[in-house]
């Protein structure tokens, strides 16, 4: 994925999170996570990604 693509996704996520309101953003992100995991179709990769997303939350 190019730098431009990552930026586009970054923006799309930010805008959608704002649109769905703070109350629904968590549900939206959980849905998205399930959906992307299903698309990825690779249990080990998804597990590894879940682990790396958990890193640094407290910083």
């Amino acid at each position: 994925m190019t730098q431009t693509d990552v930026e586009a996704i970054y923006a799309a996520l930010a805008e959608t999170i704002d649109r769905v309101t703070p109350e629904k953003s968590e549900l939206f992100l959980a849905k998205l996570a399930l959906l992307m995991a299903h698309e990825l179709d690779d249990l080990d990769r998804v597990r590894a990604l879940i682990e790396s997303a958990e890193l640094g939350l407290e910083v």
Partner: protein
Amino acid sequence: MRPAGRSDTESLYFTYPSFNAPDIDQRNTTTSSPVAIIGAGPIGMTAALALAKEGVKSVLFEKKNTFNDGSRAICVARSSFYILEHLGAVDPFLENALGWTKGRSFYRGKQILEFDMPDSKHDKYRPMYNIQQQFIEQYLWDAVAKSDLIETRWQSEILATHDHDQGIALSVADPNGHYTFDAAWVLACDGARSPIRKLRGHRLKGENFEGRYVIADIQMDHDYPTIRRALFDPECRRGGTVLIHKQPHNIWRIDYQLADDEDETQALKEATVRTSVAAVLKDIGYDGPWDLEWWSVYSANTLALDDYRDGRLFFVGDSAHIVPIFGVRGLNNGLADAANIGWKLGWVLNGQAAETLLDSYTPERRGATLDVFANASKSARFMTPNTHGWTLMRDAALSLALTHDFAGQLANPRQMTPFTYANSPAVLPDDPDFTQGPSIGAFLPDFKLAQGYVTDQLGQGFNLLCFDTSLANALSTAVPNLHVTYVPWSQALHDIYKADPDSAFLLRPDMHIAGRWKSANAQKIAQGFQSLLSSTGSNL
């Protein structure tokens, strides 16, 4: 509970019988029995029938004078139908129960999943049948009453047990007074609150789940097929779950989850139940008249004894385990317990098997219960998620399911399948050449023949299922106590059993596979059968 003005057993559609206590002279003439069974609930009666099937006498003690109140367990699984068939009790069930194969799940009123349970032309019975527990008990009772080998003593409560060298002395109380009854073996089928379990100092161990459900039965003329419906987050119960099942006699089971802050006493008041049920009916678009039959409250537990055996006493059914209703395993699991201990005790008492066979009861049936726990806990966490994380992901799955089928599958309850007794002391080591097909310890899948099914061909006791006439002939006289069942080999049969024409399966009386040989001969089979009955325990 029943509506105001109706007693515990005043049902809209069922007449509870009332059984007398035994005649004092008669009960004094029989003071001992090879087996005593405590509790004539569905499991106690099934255990008595399973023993009678092996020709073993039992006396059944029940403290009440009638069946259990309320419809309680309503879903009877395919494997239980085989047990009932084996005990000669399946006909009234087939006649009256409602078979079903389908479930539908809804999220906020929209259907997100329709699932079909496995069902093919090779299956003699449907995956599931709905019938009220009073009928289950009535039909079992009809079979018990017909048996010369079972004596039932109603209004007879067991107050104490006393172990001695040859058995257990039971202290019995009935309206005529107290007496002692002696049994070589005792089956404690005395239910979830098992007084016998407490008397003997045992405790159920496990987990309690948070969710509480009210289960209410109503009578209404509602036009919907026998399909299990699950409503997630419906209008009538925001944040909660509702289950709807059809039963015979226009009775509908409505289970609805209570919110965490809902007070149980308040929720169980008749007026509250009526309002809650009315809201569910509005959601499913029913606006006709209805009658309230019975209701109760329920919460999901996964609790079991560490050991189902205590000397000469076995715990069978709810006395040994309490399982969540999701996936309808309470009754079905207990029926399999009763069938399991029934044939084993029968074979031991008849001198056909070594006493060590009884050691396989706990590992097999407790193993099955732990398997039920694993599945039911998964369902319970979906039906009543109890942490923020489980709730969020459940809601995400439901919301995603509106547009994506894969997410809807997370709402599939995956109903019970019979447990495989692999590594049990009561099965033989596997044949390494037999790599596919139904495995050691599995419940034999059925197969449709030109006429009837393979299971129709099975005889009493252990069966050797083979597909080759010369093997069948060689075996027919060679092995005592073994019934030889020959079925012609075909490609279609191979598709199910993965068996060659010279393969064979050794089946236990409960239809679980005790041994299998890819290429069988009479000697291997005779040796295997012999070692199974004489030295069970070798496989552990």
